[in-house]
């Protein structure tokens, strides 16, 4: 029998394969998704850097108020929602089902507030004339890269909020367990992690001085 195989009580030897690195299948699937998604975001950010350096009239339009202030608030909310997600998973692992459900819903509300703030910022920029192909400040590539990168992240946040509510409700109803909350938590922390790179490169490097 190979090292990767082991028997469990009541089963013939070699019929069950131990999970790789002791990581359950769902969790491993989420980690593989995270690795793939990290590559996606890295590709988008590298392409953004390429466009930014290659464009002679790259604009730096972001003022402290409202854009930078809004980005600070969004960062605070997203990092805080990561903490509440962690508390939810911790409560779930400890068997405290009501607390786990409440923390998960608080996390979803945090994500929803983040999405609303993001859309408000988008609308403000669109109102100033910035679109995917044009903007009043310089090269049109600025709008394309800004809306693409922040839009991809916003898509992840939106999907995360929907998943938080869906998994949270099923967890409360007994269909899902604490392990499912943990897997969802990994996704939510990853969304937070990506924002840590989006803010400095997409917002803060384009601050008006």
């Amino acid at each position, binding site marked *: 029998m190979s090292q990767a195989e082991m028997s469990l009580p009541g089963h013939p030897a070699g019929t069950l394969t131990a999970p790789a690195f002791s990581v359950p299948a769902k969790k491993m699937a989420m980690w593989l998704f995270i690795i793939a998604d990290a*590559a996606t975001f890295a590709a988008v950010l590298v392409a953004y850097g390429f466009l930014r*350096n290659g464009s002679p009239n790259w604009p730096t339009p972001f003022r402290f108020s409202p854009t930078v202030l809004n980005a600070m608030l969004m960062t605070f909310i997203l990092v805080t929602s990561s903490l509440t997600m962690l508390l939810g998973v911790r409560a779930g692992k400890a068997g405290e089902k009501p607390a786990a459900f409440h923390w998960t819903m608080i996390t979803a509300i945090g994500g929803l507030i983040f999405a609303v703030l993001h859309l408000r910022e988008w609308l403000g920029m669109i109102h100033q004339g910035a679109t995917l192909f044009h903007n009043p400040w310089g090269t049109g590539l600025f709008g394309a890269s800004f809306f693409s990168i922040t839009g991809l992240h916003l898509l992840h946040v939106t999907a995360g909020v929907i998943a938080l509510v869906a998994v949270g409700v099923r967890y409360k109803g007994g269909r899902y367990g604490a392990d499912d909350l943990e897997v969802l938590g990994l996704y939510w922390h990853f969304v937070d992690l990506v924002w840590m790179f989006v803010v400095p490169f997409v917002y803060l490097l384009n601050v008006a001085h």
Partner: protein
Amino acid sequence: MDMPDVQPHEPAARYADSITKYIVIYVCILVLAGVQFAIAYTHLSGTAMFARMLFVALAEAGLALMFFMHLWGEKRGFVLFVLIITGFVIMAMQYGWTDSYRMELGVPYSQSKPGAVQ
């Protein structure tokens, strides 16, 4: 028979740390995020500002990855699996990045064309 070093019913990451530890990590991440905002208002060159922001972002991401996502509590082989694969893919992209000026400006690798804004 060699025994495997895996325990299928006992996940490595147990989420049993104290809440205080999580709050300390949370505050550290917020402080680092604040440092990024402060860097944005310094009078550094674009490259120096980018390097500092990247360094701080990597520190933030490291804290989130190791403690919020509990990678620190997983088996060492899994930590290496995640970090090596992710790192390799992202580093491999740098080949295209250094060669991007050839595509953009018609000059090889990182040599800039006179007059182009870097």
